[in-house]
């Protein structure tokens, strides 16, 4: 076991980890942050995407020990302490950007990065950016609507109901 010390969602965390523990498992099992979903566990699906020092990373393709002295943000950081939905989450809700919701945490964190790095992008760039996040329900159309709405306020088509 080795001791790691990192910042998770703005809070310091110190823990003993087995070197082979994945960051995804550390977040879920040791810290109880089960918002980070584990899908394929080999870097294909993107459900476990988190931000490490502000840049997106597959938490299943990182050892927890590699996150020592780093800052990690998970989907829980978007709506902390019972605050209302983050604007990106609200856009996903409004535009029906999810069905089963399994891929959503990873998509949201990818979109947080997109909003920080390329907020003015159009639908093609949104699709390109989200190419590493697999969704098996929506067909992506409403996800792209949601991202467009989150980035621009419009014209992503909102759910009428």
């Amino acid at each position, binding site marked *: 076991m080795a001791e790691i010390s990192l910042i998770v969602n703005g809070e310091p965390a110190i823990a003993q980890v087995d*070197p*082979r523990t*994945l960051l995804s498992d550390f977040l879920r099992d040791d810290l109880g942050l089960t918002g980070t979903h584990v899908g394929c566990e*080999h*870097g294909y699906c993107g459900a476990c995407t988190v931000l*490490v020092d502000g840049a997106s*990373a597959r938490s299943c393709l990182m*050892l927890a020990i*590699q996150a020592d002295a780093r800052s990690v943000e998970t989907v829980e950081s978007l709506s902390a302490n019972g605050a209302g939905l983050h604007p990106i989450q609200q856009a996903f809700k409004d535009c029906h950007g999810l069905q089963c919701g399994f891929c959503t945490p990873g998509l949201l964190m990818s979109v947080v990065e997109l909003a920080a790095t390329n907020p003015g992008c159009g639908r093609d760039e949104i699709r*390109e950016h989200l190419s590493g996040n697999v969704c098996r329900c929506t067909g992506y159309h409403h996800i792209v609507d949601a991202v467009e709405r989150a980035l621009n306020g419009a014209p992503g088509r909102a759910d009428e109901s």
Partner: protein
Amino acid sequence: MKPPRFAYYSPRTLPELLEVLEETGDEAVVLAGGQSLLPMLNLRLATPSHVIDLGRVPGLDSIASPNGSVEVGAMVTHRRMETDPIVAAVAPLAQRAAGYVGYLAIRNRGTVGGSVAHADPAAEWPIVLLALDGNVGLASSRGWRNVAAEDFFESVYTTARRPDEVVTSLRFSSRFAHSWGFSEFQRRTGDFATVAVAVACVVESGEVAEARVAIAGVADRPLRCREAESALTAGSASAAIDAAEAARDCIDPVSDIHGSSSFRKRLVYAETLRAVRQALTVNEAGIGDG
């Protein structure tokens, strides 16, 4: 779907790293960005008894441009290659190719050194190295050496790196900064290339004085196609088509689930033609026409 047990080392200096490598040798794998190694560990395709993490070794993430080349530390990420102004100015082909590697989350973590040490025959960096007369810097407790890209890649996941050596840097020539092309076919954005082609030329007084054509995804290692290069330097009016035909005819790809042999040959023709046309129309600022 979890990594096997292993002893983990996180050396804090290069000498310490080289010492650990010497002691562990064949038993160890080197962890750079982990974007190929972690899937292999998770799937238990690799079961090393020792993992040596380069993440805390200083001095492996610099980008510099010494006389006529660009030297890139092994731990430089694909994303930095995509965004670094020195790379853009001195090796724009490398910048363009970087954007084809995986998805952004992969490019944020994955490294150039890790990619060439892994030596996937469909990866981008090996053909960029071949096209830009590149070489690979290796260090061990016995000393330093540089291996030319053509001698480095031996077969699938197999390179000239010895077990006690670590890739420390890549060096690309800047001679080709004004005439280059890169074209790749992926089934889906971010997938490995079915076929990718890198072309680099030196153009003097409107004539192609030197040419490099390197192809990924068609053999057990990245290939240079000298017949295609000769077609470019021959200077005929149909040079682009001649080069594409030569590239198609110099390979003998296998069929797999990603594409049949004949499909790959057609792709090589098409991607070579695109990359060559791009190379021959790149302007003096080093910006391709796409």
